[in-house]
């Protein structure tokens, strides 16, 4: 188990380094780094001072190491727009995004797994066909359009829920989140549902496919031959087996949620990292883009690591590969 962990950690470091090289090249080598790092409003004198200060007149590989050293120290440049360290901006916004993405993950699992189970157990039922048709709609709908529809229906036409912004932040066990206030919950429902729907559709399909394949296995027949109740057969034997393919894609799913939060945050004016990056792209605030990219990569690596650990917990064949009776 520890060998496994160490190997994964080393892989992660490699990935991080590779990404840093790519980001570095993207910013410092392609395009004019002067434009990227120095605010376009600076005049000639300031530019020259900045060039020397930033070391842009030095060879590329030296610049890379400076970049890396700075990055490790947490300095990824200052935002042009806000004139604050880019990393700090990202950190300020991250909780909001994580809150949104977290709620969306939970929602999509709560909706997706039961519906997928049902559709897999009774594939011929009208409800199941409805669920599958619904799931196609769910992941075909581009997130932004779903968001628009949500606003249109729930905020404008029905007036049940607020259409923009994040609600009040409450505190629980030292953690601050808008999920702990009623106002906060009202604000988070629409954007979280928006994010969750596409994912839920995928989970429904995955679960259903998994159930269909699992039901054909001999061990299910054997479980029935032992006289187990249908509830046990499904709840334990089937469920444990479909968790495996689900967890496999879970990492990518969560990563996708965080990325697609970009769209949802733009529509619902949710003050998270996503809105920040879109604004930065439009305003050409490159330091913020760089900081965002590096943070995202780090987040993904952590998520993938956690998912791998989860995977080995769920599938004993992976965990106990080296042990043979």
């Amino acid at each position, binding site marked *: 188990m520890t060998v496994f962990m160490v190997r994964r950690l080393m892989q992660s470091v490699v990935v991080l380094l590779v990404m840093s090289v790519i980001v570095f090249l993207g910013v410092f080598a392609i395009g004019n780094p002067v434009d990227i790092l120095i605010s376009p409003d600076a005049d000639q004198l300031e530019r020259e001072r900045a060039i020397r200060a930033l070391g842009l007149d030095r060879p590329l590989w030296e610049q890379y190491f400076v970049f890396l050293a700075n990055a490790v120290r947490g300095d990824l440049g200052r935002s042009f727009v806000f004139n604050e360290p880019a990393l700090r901006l990202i950190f300020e916004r991250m909780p909001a995004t994580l809150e949104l993405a977290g709620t969306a993950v939970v929602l999509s699992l709560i909706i997706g797994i039961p519906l997928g189970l049902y559709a897999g157990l009774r594939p011929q039922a009208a409800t199941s066909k409805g669920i599958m048709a619904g799931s196609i709609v769910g992941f075909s709908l581009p997130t932004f359009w779903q968001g628009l529809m949500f606003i249109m229906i729930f905020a404008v036409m029905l007036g049940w829920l607020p259409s923009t912004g994040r609600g009040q932040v409450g505190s629980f066990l030292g953690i601050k989140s808008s999920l702990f206030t009623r106002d906060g919950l009202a604000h988070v429902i629409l954007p979280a549902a928006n994010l969750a729907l596409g994912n839920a559709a995928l989970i429904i399909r995955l679960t259903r496919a998994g159930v269909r394949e699992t039901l054909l296995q001999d*061990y299910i027949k054997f479980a029935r*031959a032992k006289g187990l109740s249908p509830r*046990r057969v499904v709840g334990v034997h089937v469920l444990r087996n479909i968790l495996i393919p689900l967890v496999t894609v879970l990492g990518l799913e969560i990563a996708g949620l965080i990325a697609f939060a970009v769209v949802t945050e733009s529509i619902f004016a949710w003050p998270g990292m996503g809105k920040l990056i879109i604004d930065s792209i439009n305003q050409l605030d490159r330091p913020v883009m760089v900081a965002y990219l590096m943070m995202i990569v780090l987040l993904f690596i952590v998520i993938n690591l956690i998912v791998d650990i989860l995977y080995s917990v769920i599938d004993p064949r992976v965990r106990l590969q080296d042990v043979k009776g």
Partner: protein
Amino acid sequence: MTGYAGPTLEVRDLKTHFFTRAGVVKAVDGVSFEIGKGRILGLVGESGSGKSITGFSILGLVDPPGRVVDGEIRFKGENLVDQPDERLRAIRGNRIAMIFQDPMMTLNPVLRIDTQMIEAVQAHHDVSADEARRRARDALGRVGIPSPDERLKAYPHQFSGGMRQRVAIAIALLNNPELIIADEPTTALDVTIQGQILYEVQKLCRETGTSLIWITHDLSVVAGLADHICVMYAGKLAESGPVDAVLDRPLHPYTKGLLGSVPSRNKRGSPLAQIPGMTPSLMNLPEGCPFADRCPRVQADCREAVPPMIEILPGRLARCIHPHLEDQA
């Protein structure tokens, strides 16, 4: 059901058909047999003869598009056909247990052995998990698995093939069933292990008085194990009778052909005897005897109608109008 004096299991004219897009497959088409307390019945046939489906039909485990369309399955006098699922569930794994062919596929790979054994006990008896675990341990001991406590905590893939099948047998024995249906349980194992398991199963059945139906395609397995043998062909019984009589002096030409094709019975150097031709399609059975096209003794009247299963000699039935009477001493 207490004090029931009749046979443990009586199957009368069982018919299990599969309704597929291409047609109706008559997998089991009129099979009858019975088995008494503590007796061992060998159900023999080649693949596609319907023997496994017969086993599944008894427990009501035939999956759509198949279903039992006719016949009776009397377990201690009670007809299991058309019973509601709850009633069947109370019997499965409890009074009738089943052992499948490939233990790697029949044990759930992500659950521990003890989980899979404890649930088999708790499905039928209201006992604590500890008590169930104790019974599981005992069962493992009875099938000869060393250090059962550690084994209980393990996962199926950590066992060898022979061990896994012993676990499957242990699970079958957990609730002291009156009948065990074993569907080719040793086919996937190598010959030495096969021998051990056969011996142990036979001993257990004699000791506990459990009836056993052993389904196989391998005649040599049945020879040393069973009391009574039923030979299946194309969904019907070809012959049935006491095992020694059937194997030494077969009545049905198919049985004789099967015996003749066993490699050990052939002389070295001479080509292996085979039954020519192929089994007929179960969707398109011919009018007369299904074995007619391959039979060395076939005559015109064989093709007119399906021969009935009749008692040709005391205790010996065969579905043939020209059986090998000349061999009977």
